[in-house]
């Protein structure tokens, strides 16, 4: 895909306009993070170079300014990801309450190590740092959904449900 072929849907374009209206006219670069979230949700859960260049063209900034920002923040995926990205918190309280078990269990169940996409392209486990869910540890996040107080049984049910649903996870 080249930049010229990439275009937001009608609905997304409307959102872009709403987002741009949140800042003074000459400060539209402020829209970069919201637009990257939107672009990631629109284009298969990750930011390819043409997608980032497209965002740069909307905001009339240099592409490098987008690469710099996209690569700084952990929520932006610069490589293709599984349909459901399972982000397991591993910091302190989550570790204390069994985050390592959660990761191991997911790896066993999905048959791929953390970081890799499962054979059917459905799932990918990623370990992340504190998601602010310490009182409901252990937990993981899939898209904008928090799954808390996890047990192995709960995980089984969640994965089953997602398989049925078969819709790419998104934050926004």
């Amino acid at each position, binding site marked *: 895909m080249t930049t010229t072929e990439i275009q937001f849907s009608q609905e997304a374009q409307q959102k872009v306009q709403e987002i741009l209206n*949140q800042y*003074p006219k000459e*400060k539209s*670069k*402020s*829209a*970069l*993070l*919201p637009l*990257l*979230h939107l672009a990631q949700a629109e284009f298969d859960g990750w930011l390819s170079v043409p997608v980032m260049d497209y965002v740069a063209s909307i*905001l009339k900034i240099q592409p490098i300014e987008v690469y*710099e*920002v996209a690569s*700084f*923040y*952990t*929520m*932006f995926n610069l490589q293709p990801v599984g349909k459901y990205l399972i982000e397991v918190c*591993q*910091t*302190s*309280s989550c*570790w*204390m*309450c*069994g985050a*390592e*078990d*959660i990761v191991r269990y997911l790896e066993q169940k999905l048959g791929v190590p953390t970081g890799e996409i499962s054979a059917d392209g459905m799932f990918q486990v990623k370990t992340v*740092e*504190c*998601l*602010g*869910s*310490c*009182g*409901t*540890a*252990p937990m993981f*996040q899939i*898209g*904008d*959904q*928090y799954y808390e107080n*996890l*047990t*192995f049984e709960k995980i089984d049910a969640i994965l089953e449900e997602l398989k049925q649903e078969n819709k790419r996870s998104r*934050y*926004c």
Partner: protein
Amino acid sequence: MSKKLLLANDHIPGINTLEVYRQHGGYKALEKALKSMKPDDIVEEVKKSGLRGRGGAGFPTGMKWSFLAKPEGVPRYLVCNADESEPGTFKDRYLMERIPHLLIEGMIVSSYALGANTSYIYVRGEYFYIIKILQKAIKEAYAAGLLGKNILGSGYDLDLYVQPGGGAYICGEETALLESLEGKRGNPRIKPPFPAVAGLWGCPTVVNNVETIAAVVPIVNISGDEYAKIGIGKSTGTKLISASGHINKPGVYEIELGVPVEEFIYSDEYCGGIRNGKKLKAVVAGGSSVPILPTELILKTAKGEPRLMSYESLGDGGFATGTMLGSGGFIVMDEDTSVVKNLFTFARFYHHESCGQCSPCREGTGWMEKILQKFIDGKATMSDIDLLWDVQSKIEGKTICPLGEAAAWPVAAAIRHFRHEFEEYVNRPESIHDVKHYFRLNNIEEA
């Protein structure tokens, strides 16, 4: 007995909606402020209240507000820091999820006090579902004439927007947050200038934590003087504490500042004691960056006085025997917990979150994680303990922003109070499996 100013109504069904929020006294502070108070009156009330920044640093809010430069013809901004990312802290999330209108009301009142006509709530990107809750509540507020032009007929205009972050702890640092809000990498700025003079887009800006802004609502309602009567000494008012770890009742608790730590941990009103009848080993009282304290020092000060949940009491004894209230992220560890391994998760966190702008933090945080990995792997030597100590001391105080200290302090405190445990990792590497995490979760045997 607990005194609730923020979460008094958090259990009421539908309190997240404007209608129910209003039924329970919501937006009374806004009406009072707009109809009977001048902006400076509100600043004065906040000063009198003794409210201190609830994000972690504890800086007096009224003073911060009074620093705001007011040059003519230049817009001023209020930015709410909802980038809550300090490990152990989840109170802002709770507040925004349960009572979004409390934050919005606080934002309107505070913006009015500061003379801001556009304000932003910067929410960490991972909290996208919260962003949706806030956006919905803001929409309701606009529809009810509580936001937008001529609010409640007062002639005051305010636009309020929610901005998502992208996944970066450092954006909780106020200048990094502003950079991020400007669409840039979250690199903290070199100060001065401070945001009060040159903040968002170079304009005077106040950045306040969610809980701080929410607290402005009860302050306006009951007056600064009344608020100051709550709490203890210079720790006025109430504080949201995020309690997690090996306790029976993890969650968010609103406490009146001054509650004894022992009561907080063991009483059924709060944490309800240690899980599975275990003994308490250590507590990180104010989020991952504050010094860890062993049982004897968290329950009592070095002088033998009961330790209280307040800025002063938790800080009693300095870092030698004390800690900090910080963000109120209260992480409790039982007797089986490895302080070294927990520290490793902190070190990994700070390494992951260092922005990389200045060299001591960029290089030092990774180095500390690698040394700690040696302990976990049973490959450390005694000299690694001293090396670790030295590396943290070389980071502390040498960096652009406080992330350097945040990374260094927990390491220093763990060595200070639990050196024997590091030595154990060196002397008996075979003992590591004793403390290495076991299948606690479902009580199953490790294969």
